[in-house]
């Protein structure tokens, strides 16, 4: 627990981070930068898990374990998505969102 900081201030910080990620997800037109916005969103939720655990139930470990799982999933998702993006670049020589039509059926 951080001395002098209430849970409301921390949740405000993580929600601002989350919605900055949402804004980036809406406005970016390059697949790599879209993926970076998703990373921001995932990180905000992981911080939420840890800090709510610390502030409300400090004798339990659930929040820490869940954020470990979130970090593992985020790493897996990023590796796979970058593999797909590089393969897509080999096919169509572009990673802009508007050019990616070859994956549709």
């Amino acid at each position, binding site marked *: 627990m951080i001395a002098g900081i209430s849970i409301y201030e921390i949740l405000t910080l993580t929600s601002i981070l989350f919605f900055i990620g949402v804004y980036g997800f809406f*406005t970016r037109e390059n697949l790599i930068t879209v993926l970076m916005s998703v990373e921001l969103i995932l990180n905000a939720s992981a911080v939420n898990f840890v800090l709510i655990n610390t502030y409300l139930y400090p004798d339990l470990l659930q929040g820490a374990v869940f954020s470990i799982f979130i970090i593992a999933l985020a790493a897996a998702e990023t590796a796979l998505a970058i593999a797909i993006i590089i393969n897509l670049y080999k096919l169509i020589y572009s990673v802009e969102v508007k050019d990616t039509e070859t994956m549709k059926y």
Partner: protein
Amino acid sequence: METIIFYILSGIIILFAVASVTSRKILRAVIYLLFVLIGIAGLYFLVDYNFLAAIQLTVYGGGIIVLFIFAVLLIHHVELELEKTALKKKLIAGALSASGLLVTLWAISTYPFPETTSTYTSIEVADIGRKLLSYEDGGFILPFEVISVLLVAVMIGAIVVAKGSKLSEDRSRKTEVGSQKSEDGSEKLTENN
């Protein structure tokens, strides 16, 4: 003291997050994302979760950022500037996310969080390890195993996807040699390449 550090860290996080989603130079955007992730590791240190902070620094700061930089360097020129997004799109996205933020903040500020009754103890790495591998109530052995299977699947999947064309070339050659029935299938595969 901790209050001041928290405010400095949150200022760094928000500033660099905004810079990361608005910067038009893609490599700089990745570096700004690195600063955001390091700031979040600082938050973890501030609440005494040393293990999570170490994971955050190694997996995110070490692994994911390097992956992003590799992808950027493989795909773009270093000095490439991204296209400007249309002002209308920016306004709509800004309004949507601002309204979402307002609703979330209102919900948070009106929710009565219960006061903690238990005392705070710092968490040892050994406790997390025992919790992850315990079979008892509230143990995490099943998600732990599922995550390890998922990581293997992702590793194989990333290799197959990233080298996709070569693998399917081999497969189509094999099917051509093997039987005449699958000629249509192999033609499709070579078209995809």
